């Protein structure tokens, strides 16, 4: 009995030390636990309509973020291959046109590009060309991915460049193995998977941050035609709404009345929830990304 106990304790110690050493896994655990705790707290203290609004916004933001990383991965992969083969072909005109196209996306600040994209989206939504939350989120994700896919493209290009200088690339070519297989399977899949995953985690963080920023900018009213009511609920979008703003302002009240603190967690939950979800998600993604980087020795 005692020996079994010792075994369990030693296994538990091993498990804890392994999790503690692998910061990405630790932070996934922290994130999941934090979210469960938040759900429990909100189910006790947050009213049902606000609860539904907050968690719909959260799900929408994460769903849009995941769609962005899928689109960015596809666009980045396509663009990296297009660039490699265009340069390999050596056609000056083709290279110039390609450079112009890529630099166009690179030169526009992400936030401006997405903002312009959102204006078009808002017009399409208000004219009921795009209807339903799913398609609205889908096109929001497409818009954002056009301004973040460059990160994936540049990573994949670096990987191709690094390996194409090595004997392994040349040795496989000399064996008659197709270049497309070497690039896609041997370089990307076998040797860059971890780099790509780490980059995608970062892009998820960037996307959530950009969404929140854009929703804030839109909330102050860029044009009469673009308003938050056109878009599905997201974290930034809900945060910019009046109820949430008042909850956030209540936090400022703490400076003059510190005893107000306990009330914050029971009566001003909507705004604090959203603020917490944004910062906690961004912090966790940052920690997971860094931990993954370290664990994989990238």
């Amino acid at each position, binding site marked *: 009995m005692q020996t079994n106990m010792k075994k369990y304790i030693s296994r538990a110690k091993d498990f804890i030390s392994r999790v503690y050493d692998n910061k990405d896994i630790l932070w996934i655990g922290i994130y999941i636990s934090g979210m469960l705790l938040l759900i429990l707290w909100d189910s006790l203290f947050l009213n049902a309509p606000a609860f539904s609004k907050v968690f719909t916004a959260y799900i929408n933001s994460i769903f849009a973020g995941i769609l962005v990383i899928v689109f960015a991965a596809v666009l980045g992969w396509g663009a990296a291959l297009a660039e490699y083969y265009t340069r390999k072909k050596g056609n000056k005109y083709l290279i110039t046109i390609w450079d112009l196209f890529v630099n166009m996306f690179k030169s526009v600040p992400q936030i401006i590009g997405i903002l312009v994209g959102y204006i078009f989206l808002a017009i399409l939504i208000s004219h009921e060309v795009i209807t339903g939350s799913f398609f609205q989120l889908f096109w929001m994700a497409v818009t954002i991915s056009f301004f973040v896919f460059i990160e994936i493209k540049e990573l994949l290009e670096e990987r191709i460049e690094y390996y194409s200088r*090595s*004997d*392994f690339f*040349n*040795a*496989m*070519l*000399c*064996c*008659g*193995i*197709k*270049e497309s*297989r070497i690039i896609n399977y*041997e370089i990307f899949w*076998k*040797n860059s998977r971890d780099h790509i995953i780490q980059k995608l985690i970062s892009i998820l963080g960037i996307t959530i941050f950009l969404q929140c920023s854009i929703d804030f900018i839109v909330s102050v009213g860029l044009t009469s035609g673009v308003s938050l009511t056109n878009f599905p609920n997201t974290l930034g979008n809900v945060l910019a709404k009046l109820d949430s703003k008042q909850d956030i302002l209540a936090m400022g009240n703490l400076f003059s009345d510190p005893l107000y603190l306990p009330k914050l967690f029971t009566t001003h939950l909507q705004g604090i929830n959203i603020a917490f979800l944004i910062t906690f998600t961004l912090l966790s993604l940052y920690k997971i990304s860094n931990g993954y980087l370290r664990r994989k020795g990238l």
Partner: protein
Amino acid sequence: MKEFNFNIEIAKKGKEIVSIEKYRFTESKITFLFGESGIGKTLANKAIFGLLDESLLDVKINGLNYSAFKKHEVCRDFRNNGFFVFQEPSSHLNPLIKISEQMNEGDIGGSRNDKEVLEQLWRKQFDSFYKNVIDIYPKPYRPSGGEKQRVLAAMAFKKLRVLKNYDSRNLYVFDEPTGNLDNYFRNVFIDNLIEQYIKHRFTSVFITHDYSIVAYIQKRYSKLLSDIEYKELYRAGEKSKLRKFDSAEFLKYDFKKLARNSKGSGQLKLAVKSGIKVFERELIFSKNEDTNYRASLKVNSGEITYLKAPSGEGKTTILKIIMGLVKADEFAIRFEDKIVDQTTLPKFWSEVIWGKVAGIVFQHADEALNLNSKVKEVFQALPLEEELTDLDIISKLNEIFDEEITEEFINKKTGQLSGGQKQKINLLRTFMLDTDIILLDEPTSGMDFNSIKKFLVMLQKKLKENKAILLVSHNEDIFDPLVDEENRYYLKTTD
């Protein structure tokens, strides 16, 4: 004479990486340590020298944990009075300090005889190379691998000169000190080492893959044979063991029998015109070592053509030009009936040559293989007519491997294999393509003698199949006997 005797166990994160029982060498002797690369020669010697990092590796020597062993008298003597010449010269030299200054750091600064030591290793007047090779920063001036290796050897020889009390417990480890040197400078190094040894009678371990050193020692230092030991590390299951290397077997091995048995049809398969202009120099082929009479390099079916040159002369570059991997400014090559030159488009090689007419085995298996691929994936990627099954791959690997190949082995990542195992896979990959022309760049590098013999049998089979082979190797003692004089070429640079 007293023997050093160590049982060495090295593990990383609980996984055993080297385990050597009875690693022995004798005091006051030079021990040449052979064995395939990656078997643990370097790690074992670094371990006994106290050079391993305890925070990364779990090391036990003779039952002692590593921190206790490092405090042990034997290890302290090795470290304080010996010298370790590392295998990779680049990692030994600090790029931010001039080589001339590094040659006088620490206790080797006590010996101010750089000129004499260096002249002996360069076999040239000091002034002719000092400014360009020694009085420079390793970066960006980048001395060649051979030059860096001679600098390290010079440091070791200086250390020998500053020692006042010579003791047999002073251990000098030379880890592949001649790996980047051609045979001439390799022999110069050995001559220097033995000259010092005769004077001081220190203990030395000379790690190498170059089995042909045995022939040189036998020929030149036959009177010293009682002071020289040949040992070989070999794989015995999961452990490495040390055995006496039978130098007589190497010396008696009839390399010529391969040549006798393998006369092919002699049909011209590949010709390269002398006078290739690349990297602002001109490379020429000559059939004579001492003169610059130009000759076209010809490779016939069923024959081996042997291209020789000192290190850094451009042998690998020539192979890469033939395979279309390096674009020369001016060249002319004939593959059977197809003629190519600097105007030929790169797609010619991908559409016509690669894997169809010619294949190449690159020198460094470590770099030529995708280390994240499984062994079987290396072969399954090949564009063969029929897809290879696991059994096909196992049976092919059994032709060159000593140990029985298992399902588990072919599912290992190539990065987990030893250097010698990687090299065999590197070779087999190209051999399985069945191209008419095969280019081999240092094909035996990292292999032990048993594997070399198996490789030679495979080579013989290829010659019988009428394949044309172009070989680059500094292992002249092995390849000279099996290549006809008329098929030996010397690569030279003209100004």
